[in-house]
């Protein structure tokens, strides 16, 4: 144990000076190897294999051949790819903004004291626990233009009928509605946690300083929960950009290609048209886009985190 401790100290001091890379003592390896094996098998290998496939003409049932960057060049001129990119962007922005706005509003409501608060909060978070495919089936029935309950409800207030997911112009907002219904509770929980952790004393100061309710929200609550909103934003953005199950179960990218996101397009390319090489190239570009998005969001999060500001 003593030798491990000494190695550890040496490694740390080396890291602090930034002189030498960390060297693990031999007795560390038994702890590290299982994780390395798992990570190599489920993350590194598929990733490297995808890269390798993307550099090949690889259609199932046909001979493979190395084509270098041809799949990427083909992607740049593929109008359907750009269209799916636009759908992904639109779907992501809407499915992030709507739950973020509604979740924050819900958190402010549930932060107040009122009768049956705990019970209602429990009911509110239930959508989050449901299986996406089951949700998709239920909402597909609710969206049905003739038999669906949504058009019936709209008819009560003299609106509609709408075609929901069966119309090219309303399909993405309809899918976003499902996504919002399911994931607003998650944002609510994150923001509610944030609200519970912010200090209460500054509100009395603000009261004395002359702030009204809106100014207290604008200048105190909002900036103080900003780090939590950023966490919700990051989780929702990454989740929404990768969204597949609900879209596939409800529309499979249709009508036509009106709700085809990159995920659906690359799935169809790889597993409907069996063009594995081209699908892999799409996966690589998509992966790089997600990493870039995460990086940007993490950078923004750093700037909003007032509780760590002294470290900057």
């Amino acid at each position, binding site marked *: 144990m003593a030798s491990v401790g000494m190695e550890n100290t040496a490694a740390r001091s080396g890291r602090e000076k930034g002189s030498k890379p960390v060297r693990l003592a031999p007795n560390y390896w038994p702890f590290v190897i299982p994780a390395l094996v798992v990570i190599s098998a489920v993350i590194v290998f598929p990733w490297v294999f995808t890269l390798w496939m993307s550099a090949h003409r690889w259609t199932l049932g046909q001979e493979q051949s190395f084509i270098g960057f041809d799949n990427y060049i083909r992607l740049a001129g593929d109008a359907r790819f750009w269209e799916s990119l636009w759908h992904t962007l639109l779907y992501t922005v809407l499915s992030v903004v709507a739950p973020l706005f509604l979740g924050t509003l819900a958190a402010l409501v549930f932060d107040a004291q009122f009768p049956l608060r705990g019970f209602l909060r429990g009911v509110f978070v239930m959508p989050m626990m449901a299986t996406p495919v089951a949700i998709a089936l239920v909402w597909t029935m609710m969206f049905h233009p003739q038999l669906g309950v949504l058009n019936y409800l709209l008819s009560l207030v003299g609106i509609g009928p709408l075609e929901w997911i069966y119309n090219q112009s309303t399909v993405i907002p309809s899918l976003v509605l499902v996504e919002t219904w399911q994931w607003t509770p998650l944002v609510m929980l994150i923001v509610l946690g944030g609200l519970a952790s912010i*200090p209460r*004393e500054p509100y*009395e*100061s*603000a009261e004395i*300083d*002359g702030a009204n309710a809106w*100014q207290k929200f604008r*200048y105190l609550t909002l*900036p103080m929960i900003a780090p939590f909103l950023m966490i919700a934003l990051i989780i929702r953005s990454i989740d929404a950009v990768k969204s597949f199950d609900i879209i596939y179960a409800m529309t499979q990218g249709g009508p036509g290609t009106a709700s085809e996101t990159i995920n659906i397009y690359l799935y169809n390319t790889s597993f409907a048209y069996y063009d594995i090489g081209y699908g892999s190239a799409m996966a690589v570009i998509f992966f790089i886009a997600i990493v870039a998005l995460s990086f940007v969001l993490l950078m923004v999060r750093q700037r909003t985190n007032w509780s760590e500001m002294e470290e900057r």
Partner: protein
Amino acid sequence: MASVNIQNVQKRFGAVRVIHGIDIDIQDGEFVALVGPSGCGKSTLLRMIAGLEELSDGEIRIGTREVSNLPARDRDIAMVFQNYALYPHMTVKDNMGFALKLKKAGAEETRAKVDRAASILGLESLLERYPRQLSGGQRQRVAMGRALVRDPQVFLFDEPLSNLDAKLRVQMRGEIKALHQRIGTTTIYVTHDQVEAMTMADKIVVLHDGVIEQIGAPLELYDRPANLFVAGFIGSPAMNFIRGRVEEGVFRTGNGLTLPLPQSANPATLGGRELICGVRPEHIRAVATGGIEGRVELVEGTGSEIYAKLTCKSDEIACLFRERLAVRFGDTIRIAIDPSTVHLFDIETGKRI
């Protein structure tokens, strides 16, 4: 600046009454300390003046305005909290300028007022820092700066020095007092520390269980405490209280210890009644001959003074000697008490006779 008039103010939390009808008149520019032990209602009273607690009954006036039902933001007061209550996500500059921002003051005016307050409090080099980057004393100054830029009619302080260490507390005490002398704004200062109240205030209000025990100037409270509570609360170490009766022109305890009577006391009217005699430890002198003999049970020296507890005929008497006496545990010494410094209290009512 303005006067503050508090009339029959009461506060109830459900069935529990914490403030029982308080009346205080605070003159324009006066520094008033609300002092009392924990739970006496001093902070609640301050919060009612601030508008952070509703009044159950009574009336508060600031200047000529009745403010009892006005929200805090409309009372034109500034408050410094015990925990400072700074805005953690704002820099010192933004913390201090926040009230002006809400008032939609111009950038130039805000900067000028913040700079002025910062220079008064020595915060010029800290304006771009966040509260978490400051020490306790610096945060306390920022909280004061925030109050200062408001230029309010009344300053309210809610135990602002409680979270500071002893040395810094003494320093900040002086700074707050100097600040008041410089700007002259009416100030209400809540503290449980009677030394703070004595050193800073023009007038002290002693509260106990939601009732005013005495209002007066610091020395008035020290020299002529209205009752046993004030006598015991004001002064450190606390006053000695000894039970006994007035017999043959002296005060005699059950153990046979005799103490001088105050010059104002009339033995004829007090004769036979059981009373409490109060003597401050610092009013007891060590003498070579005569006086009262006592055995030393405890000695604590601080360098500038010696605190000793004596047993005099089974009665315990605490003494504070300014001179350097070579006394040790177990020694027998003699003490004398100046009759003009002795107080007598009625045992039934607790009032000073």
